[in-house]
């Protein structure tokens, strides 16, 4: 619900605004506009969503440029600085968790690793897992959802029951169990890359039924529409109807669900790392930092605050952006 801007005037406001926009842009604007263009116009007016989108972009840039940025401040995420640690308590000697010109966000208790660098590198893991697992879920969910909705009958029955089963599955427990029995080397990958891949696959696999259900429902209602009937009577094949007639009309809900799924996946990654089944040390991860911070919540609260804020900002930004995209693509659905 990012609609406070539109709230007072409800349905009428956006269209009125559009008309105003059309009027000011002159004759050219009378031409028909594509769905994407209309959505973009709406999104541009949604300040909150736009802010969210910009933050998301910044986060992506940060993640990609993590090594460069860390190098720019002269830090890396794995160098220990025990000289900055009080040996008696294991906490950083400086105030606020050892924040200084060298260490912008302080240093970790015990090891003295630079928190700023670890946050940057942690963004890589969070976003990588968040995005790619969403991609896995979207691909699986769209394909299986559209098949179930279009063909109906036993295909629908089987796919729907699988979705019900997966939705009822205790996925967090399953992932924990799976990660602990997985070998260290898998498909030519080792160590942390195995864990990252595993998290992507598993989070994606357990995420597809959510999107699958929506796609199936949409397909059920769309396949009875006149334009599908028309295509059918013109002799179009099933796959032509599926991919040329139905899929384009499913793009909006799919995009909406994807943007909503990414923050959930980021949280799941954080939870897994928190529980110790995420990436391997010394690779940095926000969830792992939070988990380590529990022992110092009183003596070094900054250590808990920093990764907590990072997760909070990321998830909030994705959610705001996602809400905005949904409103833009499907203004009726949001109210």
């Amino acid at each position, binding site marked *: 619900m990012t609609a406070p801007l539109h709230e007072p005037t409800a349905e009428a406001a956006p269209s009125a605004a559009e008309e105003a926009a059309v009027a000011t842009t002159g004759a050219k604007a009378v031409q028909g506009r594509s769905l994407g263009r209309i959505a973009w116009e709406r999104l541009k007016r949604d300040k909150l969503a736009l802010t969210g989108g910009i933050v998301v972009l910044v986060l992506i840039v940060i993640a990609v440029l993590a090594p460069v940025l860390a190098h720019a401040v002269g830090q890396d995420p794995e160098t220990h600085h025990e000289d900055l640690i*009080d040996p*008696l308590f*294991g906490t950083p000697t400086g105030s606020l968790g050892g924040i200084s010109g060298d260490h912008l966000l302080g240093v970790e208790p015990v090891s003295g690793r630079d928190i700023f660098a670890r946050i940057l590198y942690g963004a890589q893991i969070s976003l990588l897992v968040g995005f790619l697992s969403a991609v896995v879920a979207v691909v699986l969910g769209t394909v299986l959802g559209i098949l179930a909705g279009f063909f109906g009958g036993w295909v629908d029955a089987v796919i729907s029951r699988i979705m019900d089963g997966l939705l009822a599955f205790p996925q967090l427990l399953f992932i924990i169990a799976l990660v602990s029995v997985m070998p260290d080397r898998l498909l030519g990958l080792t160590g942390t890359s195995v864990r990252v891949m595993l998290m992507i696959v598993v989070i994606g696999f357990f995420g597809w039924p959510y999107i699958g259900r929506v796609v199936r429902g949409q397909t059920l209602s769309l396949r009875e529409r006149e334009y599908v009937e028309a295509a059918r009577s013109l002799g179009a094949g099933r796959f032509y109807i599926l991919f040329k007639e139905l899929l384009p009309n499913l793009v909006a809900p799919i995009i909406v669900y994807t943007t909503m799924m990414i923050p959930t996946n980021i949280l799941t990654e954080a939870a897994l790392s928190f529980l*110790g089944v995420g990436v391997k040390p010394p690779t940095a991860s926000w969830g792992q930092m939070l988990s380590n911070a529990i022992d*110092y*919540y*009183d003596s070094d609260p900054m250590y808990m605050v920093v990764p907590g804020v990072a997760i909070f900002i990321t998830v909030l930004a994705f959610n705001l952006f996602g809400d905005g995209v949904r409103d833009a693509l499907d203004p009726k659905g949001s109210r």
Partner: protein
Amino acid sequence: MTTQRTSGRRKQALAAAAVVAGLLTTAACGGGKDDGGKNGAAGFNAANNKIAQASLVKKGGELKFASTQDADSWDTTRGYYGFMWDFSRYYSRQLLTYKTQPGAAGAELTPDLATDMGQVADGGKTYTFHLRDGITWEDGKPITSKDIKYGIERAWAQDVLSGGPVYLKDVLDPDGAYKGPYKDTSADHLGLKAIDTPDDKTIVFHLPKPNSDFLQMVALTSASPVRQDKDTKSQYGLHPFSSGPYKFQSYSPGKSLVLVRNTNWKASSDPVRKAYPDKISIKFFTNANDMDQRLLAGDYDLDLAQTGMSPQGRTTALKAHKANLDNPVSGYVRYAVFPQSVKPFDNIHCRKAVLYGADHVSLQTARGGPIAGGDIGTNMLPPSVPGAEGQKYDPYEMAGANKNGNAAKAKEELKACGKPNGFSTTIAVRNNKPVEVATAESLQASLKKVGINAQIDQYDGSQTAGIIGSPSNVNKKGYGIIIMGWGPDFPSVQGYGMPLWDSSYILQSGNNNYALIKDKSIDKMFDDFVTTLDESKKTQLSTEINHKVMEGAYYLPFTFEKFINWRSSRLANVYTTNSYNGMYDFVNLGLKSSK
């Protein structure tokens, strides 16, 4: 003697779930600092190897333990946790026990049920003990030599009563001829040939081979008497029948345990136990931070597990309640060990490269620093074991010139090993010990500087026996560095180092000789040690064994471990003892007020 010392290791398998619960509960009880005017606390280290406030003790009151861990079993035959052995003296007695004195004197033996230290004959192959008068069970019946024999025999029934130490079984019946009391066909179920009970007050042990630590084994909790008609087999741990000054009133596993006075116990029959409080209770917690807060608030008197406070409570306590803390040496050595089956650790120079490459101060900080972690470990014998030299023996100058690592020497050793550019390996570490993971990361960071790339593999900490205890699995996984810790079962090089360093202790599962040391000279020294009855010779042998192990560079010691333990201001007559690895001696704790 293959059973490993598991004190505090097994039950942390649920760490993951506990962490979640931890977040929820810690949020609810932040702060919690009390008034600070804790008059009556004895002072920092006041009870460390000395007695604190002995004169203030009053009879009566309820002594309250708190713990995040229940015992592995309260059955005297099955318990192997250190705190269980310490606590068991409340409700069990042995022929001999440890002196109730602080520090090193506390590790000396003294007669308990027996009238004296026993008569040795046949060059150490026969031991005869006579029992005291007036020793009774909780129902008033006298404790007989047959009860003691039966109690010891139960260790043979490993299929029913697993978990406890089997030293006596291995020494008295090395071939396993006896099948245990439950499969014993004789009418009285006392068929073990190695123990004679000529009358109710005499017990005679016949050893096939002398063992210099036999008296230590007789003093173990697992040599306590058990009465046949009260033996509920695998259920016995729920309510052991008391021979000591307290008896079980109620016990719900993982929740609480209450002991009350055993009215049939006579102080005149027991020279060791003072039995000050009227009631002893244990409350089990699920969250360590929660427990520490309650200790700080004075709701409980001390931690049963005695493994040190968690970082959060420790920091608060050190800042605001230092007088309530003791900082004993735990008797554990924390270390990394290099299995020789994993290349390139078959080469001594590659092992030495790790010893020189490691930053020992960083490892110490990861363990908790000089106070809560311990002094930098320089060799493998814990300071509490006779023959140990502490930091004075430092062949690799780990606490001296090389304490921050010596990259030049490490590179030299790498060259000698034929790996001038370093190598890659894997560090195996238990996933339920955050401190061990921190040490692994520290080691990884310092080794990287000399070109050794180590990957950290966190394995299920509740499965040590099958994962790092299996040499074939270690080899398959390529665990070149294993992070572990070890403490003595009883203070001697046999009770500490034999399972670690003697080649006959290499097992296919549950192995503790992780380095796979097969050194004839070390084996020979252990053989000599076991048969030598001369104390000074034993001490000398311990020292030599330790030197030999260090010269082989099989181990990288981290710390001679220390703990920060909490003692409430209500406690009196408090002291740590070497017999229980620096824990407080529970049995004679008293309170300052009888309320």
